[in-house]
């Protein structure tokens, strides 16, 4: 998608695709058939720039044909560089950072008012935690005891300029989230069984919003992209593209081998 369009957010999509995979294929019961209903689980992607991961998972979930992905970022396509509701399966338009959490809080609050048992999941980047609106929304989530809300932070330690801790230090992040009223768990966000186990356990504490700090590797799966800040929205060259696919093919083959 990114290679064809010659634009996109490569590394952040790779860090978060495992989380999305688990949410859509194991945790949430969101399907094209029930999408128009309020009474179902919901997902708001606050880190809108990792849209390639979302588009891929939604295609896989049957919201549209994978062929649509070939139109990514081309003139007239709804599959633009940040999610919009014009794309089937997308719940809210994001892209400006620090917006998704307030919307997720509103959704969770509305569903709680109606006594619905469904949950709201939202994915935040770590860099966007510098936006103050996240902390406004966090206060509200705790105040209204929104235990139907799970906030997942893609903690890949990098943002476009460099390490989050050098750009604007976030740590001690767990303490901050606890102080704001979340029940916090940490996982390896690129480990599928760990993600499944943690997300099957929400709410972590009844009466509290859940926060899953998912430690991930930005650019996960491709050796020369992993942990390199400049890959934030770098597009691979032909040679890099070939190498990346070959590494991912090898990883897939290894996984298939392990399951035999």
């Amino acid at each position, binding site marked *: 998608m990114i290679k064809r369009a010659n634009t996109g957010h490569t590394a952040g999509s790779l860090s978060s695709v495992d989380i999305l995979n688990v949410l859509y294929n194991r945790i949430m019961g969101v399907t094209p058939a029930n999408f128009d209903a*309020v009474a179902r689980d*919901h997902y*708001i992607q606050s880190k809108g720039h990792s849209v390639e991961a979302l588009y891929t998972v939604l295609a896989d979930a049957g919201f549209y044909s994978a062929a649509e992905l070939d139109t990514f970022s081309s003139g007239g396509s709804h599959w633009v560089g940040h999610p*919009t*509701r014009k794309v089937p399966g997308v*719940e*809210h*338009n*994001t*892209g*400006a950072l*620090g*917006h998704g*959490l*307030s*919307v*997720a*809080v*509103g*959704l*969770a*609050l*509305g*569903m709680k*008012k*109606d006594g619905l048992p469904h949950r709201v999941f939202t994915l935040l980047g770590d860099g966007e935690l510098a936006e*103050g*609106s996240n902390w*406004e*929304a966090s*206060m*509200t989530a705790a*105040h209204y005891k929104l235990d139907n809300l799970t906030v997942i932070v893609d903690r890949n330690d990098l943002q476009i300029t460099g390490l989050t801790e050098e750009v604007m230090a976030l740590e001690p992040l767990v303490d901050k989230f606890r102080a704001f009223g979340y029940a916090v768990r940490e996982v390896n966000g690129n480990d599928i069984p760990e993600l499944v186990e943690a997300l099957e356990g929400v709410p972590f504490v009844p009466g509290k919003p859940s926060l899953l700090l998912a430690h991930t590797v930005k650019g996960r799966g491709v050796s020369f992209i992993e942990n390199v800040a400049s890959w934030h929205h770098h597009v691979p060259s032909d040679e890099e593209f070939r190498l990346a696919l070959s590494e991912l093919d090898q990883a897939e083959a290894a996984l298939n081998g392990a399951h035999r």
Partner: protein
Amino acid sequence: MKLGRANLDEFGATVLALAEKDRDVLVVTSDSRGSGKLTPFGKALPDQIVEVGIAEQNLVGIAAGLTAAGKKVFAVSPACFLTARSLEQIKNDVCYSNWPVKLIGISAGVSYGALGSTHHSLHDFAVLRAIHNVTVVAPADNFETRAALTSALDYPAPVYIRLGKRPMYDLHEPDAHFEFGKAIVLRDGPDVTFVATGETVILALQAADKLAEEGIRCRVISMHTVKPLDEAALLAAARDSKALVTVEEHSVMGGLGGACAEVLLQAGVHVPFRIIGIPDEYTMTGSQEEIFRHYGITPEGLAQTAVGLLAVAAVD
């Protein structure tokens, strides 16, 4: 003309009546239930008021999320903060995402008077006009307030309604017709047209009274919807009149006057024309009334502007 109550009081009563009939109606406030005249609402329907604290960005995002959950949401905050602090949330989470939130800007314009420019909203028409997918409304009296809120309830797209604090005269018959985007002609006359919005409409009517004493007959239009503008009503007025004056409690840049100028010039309709509002300067300090007087937003000031324009028209 009978003096009614402040449009804000009318808002508090109307939204309570709407919410009593429909439990999906919610109001969301940012420590603003007192100034929003929602204290009785909070007591009567505590489950239908959502407090978010002093956090206007969060207010608008939460309003979008509640709307996504099927609620009919009035997001209530001082207009100055709602349309500046939360502008990106209005743009992205409400308008771009198309959640039909009802954005209620309270104590709008210079209603807060001597509290100073932090509390004035003289930019809201301009910024919201430049954002796609929001209807912008400034009711002139209690009737227009009630009608705008009722129309907004099930409207399928976002609406911004700005309300003031000062008691307003009733300008309409109770059976008047109100529709977003349809101006209301309050008085007709062939000489000068005043196109006014919000709390300045009464001042234009009073100016028309003064001018009538001098034999100058005016058309007065309540352009309650600043966007989408009733272009047909504007063009008809400009063609029928010798001069046209726009009046608003807003910067002279980018608001009602600017919207009218865009339409008139592009339609090739040329009429002596003046935009009356707050000029682009450090706003003088004082009450709403003192600020209005300082900038000629008074019956006398508007009448004087009209006479000056008629002199220009006579030379032409």
